[in-house]
């Protein structure tokens, strides 16, 4: 489907360059870095969900066996509250610093309070027990609506709702409003109005690799940091800022990364490890355990979303109203903004009003998770779309086609869409045999659609030609899902040489130019763009070298099949890349080309998922029995890894829909802090996940690429819920659709 005859390499499925190391255990991940004389760092974490820290006494820990350094927030500079760019999005460095080590208050169970470096992990762990912290326990607030209540316990006495003129501190950090037209008039025109409220729980990204870092501070004040991250340059920026260091004195080397899904775009351990190394004079390694990961990193927001939707009898949307409340965790900064911008983005609606609320809670500060904010919004909106289609007696895909955005539509968040593939994706879904396949008893089918903006941001790439004509390709973009293969495919295509001649590398912050994080579905799009640009520069240079060798004009030289081709009239033979490389010394020195850019024109991604489930009506247990993910990729560079994104995102969404949730007790203590009870899907919970790659090229990319990583997690929540509804006739508006909840709903029917 995606193979394009115009390309020799792009669109093929070669084996990834880093593959052999990963199937043999040789690939070095975050926790695989060891240094001579290395200490092990451990973090002391809050036993309370909300408390003032009255005092911390580390003296006994400091003199414990094997301990070389103990630190608290007092060892970090006191940063002013200041929003600053940190690669992907703005962060408040004061919040970030206090999340890494709490200052006056702990805001969630598991909040880091102090850190110890000792000669072994066991001794560090023992020393933590000797740190005496005096707490004054405060009431916890865990639910969004509770946190917004007038009498709610306030997390931050100095936080006032942004934009509100009030001197009363609030747990609502920010509000947002997105209006169009006149909703009163719009709803007055509607024949059918549906209004429903939806909730989604706190869920975790669930990467299998724990956060890990090894840091070494030299006597001259130069920090060397090895860690698993989605963006080495962001770790550098954040670490330098939090420690008050010059970014040029911090070197970050990204290891292989064992999954991130957004949560490895921030820092937890890195500044602490660097500081402990500075204090002890020894390298320090820190690795989180699974319990720490679930208690204190990641998760994405819980949400409460109300949707009111109006349509005419002939299936035209006329008005919509959305109220979206997102829990940010301990510090401001939920994905409320993108959630609000996404919620109506897929449809042409003449009148709407969206309101958003960013609410702090006594839970870990949320981190990005695949299309941040969008899955919750789409769960609500797409569920109402499905219900509306049923009420209007329309096929749910036809109903969406009637209202779908297309090129020229004004997006709900403001701008006009360029070429997009929502209509094509909907049509592909409708034509797919899955959509009309028969269903059995207690089985149901549902669809959901998803939208994500995708982003560009900064990337750079360098191509160094080796003396035999092979190429080393260097970028700073972490490879989480096979992007090195895509980068090599771009280079092979542009240089028209074999993929096998290209060695793509992910380098450290001192040996390659700046690259933003691998996130926002940007790497194949933006870093790919930089590779293409660098390759074009390289071809131009090689044509010039050949022209000089032959004594012809450079614009007479063609680049074909990996060689410079002279004008026929010259009587010369073509020069292969190997020949040009071999003679480089005499034609101007080593062959190298770089390109850097801030990529613009990231193309929006649309997906449609079809889900079949079977319910055991006596137990409320739901099994997904067939699933198809259809999405516009613009152009699939390595189709296997595009499919992989669709499949992986779909399954994360299925987990979110069916079983994943943070379960807290009333003191704010997470009860399910391991993989046993934080129930991510296992292999026999799932069928094969079929995929269809739709290709509506993104006009802003030389190969038409759209980001594909995030959209796939957006449609499943509503698709699963609708399938359950069609199987057993109950509409679940509160996730997860766990067996007790579904059984209770079936009973109540």
């Amino acid at each position: 489907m995606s193979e394009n005859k115009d390309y020799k390499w792009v669109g093929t499925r070669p084996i990834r360059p880093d593959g052999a190391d990963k199937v043999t255990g040789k690939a070095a991940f975050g926790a695989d870095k060891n240094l001579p004389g290395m200490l092990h760092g451990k973090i002391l974490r809050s036993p309370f969900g909300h408390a003032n820290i009255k005092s911390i006494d580390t003296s006994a820990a400091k003199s414990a066996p094997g301990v070389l350094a103990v630190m608290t927030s007092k060892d970090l500079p006191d940063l002013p509250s200041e929003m600053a760019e940190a690669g992907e999005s703005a962060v408040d460095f004061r919040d970030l610093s206090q999340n890494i080590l709490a200052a006056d208050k702990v805001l969630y169970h598991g909040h880091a309070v102090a850190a110890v470096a000792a000669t072994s992990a066991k001794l560090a762990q023992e020393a933590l027990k000797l740190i005496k912290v005096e707490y004054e326990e405060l009431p916890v607030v865990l639910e969004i609506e509770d946190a917004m209540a007038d009498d709610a316990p306030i997390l931050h006495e100095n936080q006032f709702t942004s934009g509100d003129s009030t001197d009363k501190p609030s747990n609502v950090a920010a509000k947002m409003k997105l209006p169009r037209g006149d909703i009163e008039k719009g709803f007055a025109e509607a024949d059918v109005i549906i209004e429903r409220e939806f909730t989604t729980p706190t869920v975790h990204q669930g990467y299998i690799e724990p956060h890990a870092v090894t840091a070494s501070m030299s006597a001259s004040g130069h920090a060397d940091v090895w860690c698993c991250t989605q963006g080495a340059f962001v770790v550098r920026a954040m670490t330098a800022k939090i420690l008050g260091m010059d970014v040029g004195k911090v070197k970050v080397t990204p290891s292989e990364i064992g999954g991130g899904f957004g949560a490895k775009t921030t820092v937890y351990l890195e500044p602490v490890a660097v500081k402990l190394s500075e204090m002890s004079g020894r390298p320090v390694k820190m690795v989180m355990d699974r319990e720490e990961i679930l208690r204190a990193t990641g998760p994405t927001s819980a949400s409460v979303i109300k949707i009111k939707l109006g349509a005419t009898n002939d299936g035209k949307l006329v008005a919509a109203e959305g109220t979206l409340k997102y829990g940010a965790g301990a510090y401001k900064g939920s994905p409320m903004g993108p959630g609000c911008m996404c919620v109506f983005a897929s449809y042409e609606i003449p009148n709407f009003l969206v309101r958003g609320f960013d609410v702090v809670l006594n839970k870990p500060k949320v981190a990005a998770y695949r299309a941040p904010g969008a899955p919750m919004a789409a769960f609500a909106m797409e569920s109402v779309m499905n219900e509306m289609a049923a009420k209007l007696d329309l096929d749910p895909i036809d109903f969406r086609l009637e209202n779908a955005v297309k090129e020229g539509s004004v997006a709900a968040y403001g701008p006009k869409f360029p070429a997009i593939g929502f209509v094509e994706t909907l049509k592909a879904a409708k034509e797919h045999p899955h959509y009309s396949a028969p269903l059995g008893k207690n089985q149901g089918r549902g669809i959901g659609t998803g939208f994500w903006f995708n982003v560009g941001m900064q990337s750079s790439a360098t191509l160094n030609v080796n003396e035999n004509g092979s190429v080393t390709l260097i970028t700073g973009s972490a490879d989480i899902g096979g992007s090195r293969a895509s980068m090599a495919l771009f280079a092979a295509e542009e240089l028209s040489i074999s993929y096998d001649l290209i060695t793509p590398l992910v380098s450290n912050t001192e040996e390659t130019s700046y690259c933003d994080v691998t996130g926002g579905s940007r790497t194949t799009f933006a870093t790919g763009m930089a590779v293409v640009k660098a390759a074009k520069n390289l071809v131009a240079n090689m044509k010039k070298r050949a022209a000089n060798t032959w004594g012809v004009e450079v614009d007479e030289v063609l680049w074909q099949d990996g060689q410079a081709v002279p004008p026929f009239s010259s009587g010369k033979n073509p020069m292969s890349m190997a020949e040009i490389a071999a003679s480089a010394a005499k034609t101007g020195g080593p062959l190298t080309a770089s390109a850097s850019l801030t990529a613009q024109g990231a193309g929006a991604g649309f997906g449609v998922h079809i889900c079949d489930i079977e319910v055991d009506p006596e137990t409320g247990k739901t099994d997904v029995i067939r699933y198809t993910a259809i999405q516009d990729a613009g152009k699939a560079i390595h189709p296997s890894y595009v499919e992989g994104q669709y499949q992986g995102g779909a399954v994360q969404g299925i987990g979110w829909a069916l079983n994943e949730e943070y379960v807290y007790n009333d003191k704010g203590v997470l009860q399910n802090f391991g993989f046993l009870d934080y129930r991510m899907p296992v292999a026999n919970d799932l069928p094969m996940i079929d995929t269809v790659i739709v290709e509506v090229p993104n006009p802003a990319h030389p190969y038409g690429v759209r980001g594909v990583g995030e959209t796939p997690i957006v449609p499943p929540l509503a698709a699963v819920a609708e399938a359950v509804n069609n199987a057993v006739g109950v509409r679940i508006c509160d996730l997860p659709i766990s067996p007790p909840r579904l059984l209770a709903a079936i009973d109540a029917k």
Partner: protein
Amino acid sequence: MLQVDLSVDLQQFSSGLESLQVEAANIRELLEQLDLRFPGLGKKIEKDMAVTINGVIYQDTLIEPIEDGSEIYFIPKIGGG
């Protein structure tokens, strides 16, 4: 002339004005012009917002040229996972 529409959140800088026309040949000039008319607006946009020119989103760039007659809208910067 460029047609510039302001979202509700930005209208606090423009005393509620929803749209205006501006003469500018690139994003830097556009933001300078906006800052002259409504102090703080251009800086706010440069710091927190992406610029859309005829629907195409431009984030973190000042040099992008803008053709006369283009429609301009500002949206919050977008990140992702």
